[in-house]
């Protein structure tokens, strides 16, 4: 059974990262194992809804993300939240690439919607969301990062607060700002 217990990135994992950064490719597997479940959880979030049409399995996406994250040398992740946020970003990017690739091949392909497993939640066009997020990045890059962490990586307000050294109430308020702004962008798109 490969479902590992949640592992912090400190200690052993940090040394794994250092080993990987110094060229030890075996560390990839170990790192992936340590965060396997979280990667898959994020992949499932990103891949919800009818993204299945792209025929990507959450596991594939998680693996793809792991490899890309590991390849991101130089500014490698320095903490669990950063690590996971980066994974979410990579997965989202992979998904968007996939959507665009598929769309280029089949011009008639309808938008790929993403929706959360809660069937009552409205569906989102994953590309429109990506465009809105890119615009947000231009207006306020920090808010865009917050969306990455909170929405895609599914990190808690407290985790993000601890990492950014802000108060939980500030993080929460800023998340509400970002969310309202994005929702408005998506509605007017």
């Amino acid at each position, binding site marked *: *059974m*490969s*479902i590992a217990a949640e592992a912090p990135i400190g200690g052993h994992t940090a040394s794994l990262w250092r080993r990987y950064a110094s060229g030890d490719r075996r560390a990839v597997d170990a790192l992936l194992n340590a965060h396997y479940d979280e990667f*898959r*959880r994020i992949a*499932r*979030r990103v*891949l*919800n809804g*009818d993204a*299945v*049409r792209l*025929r990507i*399995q*959450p*596991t594939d996406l998680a693996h793809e993300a792991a490899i890309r994250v590991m390849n991101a040398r130089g500014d490698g992740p320095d903490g669990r939240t950063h690590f996971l946020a980066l994974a979410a970003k990579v997965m989202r990017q992979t998904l968007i690439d996939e959507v665009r690739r598929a769309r280029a*091949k089949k011009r008639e392909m309808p938008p790929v919607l993403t929706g*959360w*497993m*809660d*069937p*009552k*939640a*409205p569906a*989102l066009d994953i590309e429109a969301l990506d465009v809105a997020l890119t*615009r947000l990045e*231009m*207006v*306020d890059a920090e*808010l865009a990062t917050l*969306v990455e962490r*909170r*929405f895609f990586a*599914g990190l808690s307000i407290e985790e993000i607060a601890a990492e950014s050294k802000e108060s939980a109430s500030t993080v929460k*308020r*800023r*998340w*509400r*700002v970002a*969310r*309202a*702004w*994005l*929702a*408005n962008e*998506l*509605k007017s798109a």
Partner: protein
Amino acid sequence: MDVARERRILELLDGALGRPAEERLSWVAANAAGDQDVASAVIALLDREDSARSLLPTERSAAEAEMEFVPPERVGAYRLSGLLGEGGMSRVYLGERDDGLFEHQVAVKFMRPTYLDQRARDLFDTERRALAKLRHPNIATLIDGGIDATGSPYLVMEFVVGVPIDRYVADRRLSSESVARLFLQVCDAARAAHQSLIAHGDIKPANILVDPEGRARLLDFGVAQMLGDAGAATGSIGEGAYPVTTAYASPQRMQGARPSVGDDIYALGILLRAMRSAAAGVGAPVASSDRERALDAVCAMATASEATARYAGVDALMGDVQRWLARRPVAAMSPDWRSHVSAFIGRHPLAVLAASLAVAGLIATSAVMTGLYAEARRERALAENRFEQVRGLAKYLLFDLYDHLDRTPQSLRLRQDVARRGQAYLDNLARDAAASDALHVETIEGFLRLAAVQGAPGKSNLGDLVAARSNLAKSVELARALVARRPGAPQAWLALARALSLASDFAENADHDVIVGERDWLASQDALAKAQRVGAATPTVQSLAVETAIVGASLRGWQGRYAEESALGQQALDGWRALPPVVKASEMGRLTAARAWSLVAEGAYYRGDAIGAERGYREQTSLTDALVGGAGNDPIALRAAARADWELGTTLIEFGKPALATATLAAGARLAQHLIDLDSEDSDALRDLRILRLAQAQALAANHRYLAAIALMSSQVAEREAFARSHPDQVQALRDLAVGRAALGDILASANRKYEACRAYAMAKTDFGEVSRRGRLTGVDVTYAVKQMVEHQHATCH
């Protein structure tokens, strides 16, 4: 986008949200520094802030949280050992059998846990049982399933090693012909399932694996339907919540319809298209020749948006692909072709007019050809329809209708007629060389059924042994051919085991040919073991094992190996006890147990074990009496009860309880007479009555009522003589006569009428000699009937 303005809006929004709700509006107005446009934008955002929560939810929904489940370490006999894959609705783990019985790997699929109420659970169980019956070489078999302790429904499926069909096709760059042949395997699986009224509902490359030998296997049959039904029953998902793979879903499925045959045809059309483009390579267009266009037309017809414009069934789709492979015109081309002509005329009226004289001949030919295509298409549709009807009819006649008639008195003529018609249909089906495996199995079972109906020993039958033997031989031959062709198909081996078991039964009980009986029985045991090795479902193997143990026990009895007879009878009983309760409670189930007890008792009887024999036979009569009590005029129950009474009665005579025996045998004779009253042509009942009368005479003699005994037995011998004379081909009749004469001799001897007794013995000896000369003297005859007769003759006549 005005970045500065947006920044300002975000800033104000942030500030407003930091204030209590009632102060926000005034705070925005005060801080917007007179910019009315920015202020109203912020106010609009504040208004919608609540609804944004649901658009970008961060709380994990209950369903998502439930997905985070940890699977149990094991289900049933299987230890879960690794994640094979996951999708939106499920996770699949590898399961390995670890009870040491045999090595076996399975795929265990856990569905997204949802709260399932009892109704939904029942539905899940019912449907998965239906799915478990689905056997086809191109379908990954559903082995087991259930709902684990945490409420997750799971399915245990055959573990298939292979790659998704589109990758297989792409990796090997298959030719269009190979693609078409591989596609036909998938179609055949769908066709077999449709015959069991199961639609796949989610046919797509990810659900079709091809193993290294090139055998395609369809996974997850009916799972979409099952999940949808269970969900709809709970109300946890509404109507139209059957899982859908968008690219492969028909317009009807997209609207939330329950999966149907038409949807599978649609998905098959998309699949063929996908396989062809995968074979052509990424980005490369499929070659555009006339030949490829014909296949395009097949795909187009399968994927017509109106379900009625698609192929009517998978058979029709397969027919077109087969025609394409045989380089014959495909049906899908004909309407298309006609529309090409009319489109041409529509676009170039002048050109057509100008050229009309030149092409008059061509147009005329085309019109005729179009007509012919249309005609051919109708004909084919009719033929396919007829085929399905014939198949359905054969099944109906031989199983449902015959069963019904079998319980209807005086239906002999009708039953003969039904069997004759069934025979004609089956012969037609058997001639179809291109038939699917499923149809072959069906045909084999049809022939077996017909053979049983025409002459199954010891059961109600039409008394047509010649036809029965011929059908039996056909079924054995077809089954052998099928296992040679499909050595990995459990249902082929099961069919062979069944056929050989019935062949052995015939050999021993109708022909009294124990050598052939032994050979066929051993072969049936081998086939059964083989079926089990290639993965036949345990309950099917178990019930067939019980059947063959009974045939084997009876065989051992005929061979005079009585200890083995009892042991095999006991083995049948032990196996019977492990069968599902619903099977055991059925009439068939109770008759099977009765028969097993009878064999246990018979073995004991011939070994001189009076207590064991009486006990076994009493068990048998109590089972059959209960059946008669509950069924009134049911001939099957009446016959079984009459025979049970005979067995118990004769045992009681033998072991010194003649008074009890007389009563039991009289009861048995009444049952046989009842059967004859219901149907005067019931040859089995007539023979049973003869046998019971003989025993009655013996019981009377044992009670010292000699005159009555001699009168009864003399009339019996006369009757048997007449029957043997009118049926010279039946060795059985001659043997019956010999046994009758010997019995008469015994009664006369016990009445001290030695001269008459010795004459009867001498005649019996002659008749037995004739039976022996025809090579049909059995172990029982040699070690028991003949031996006893010779001893009695010796004691009386010298």
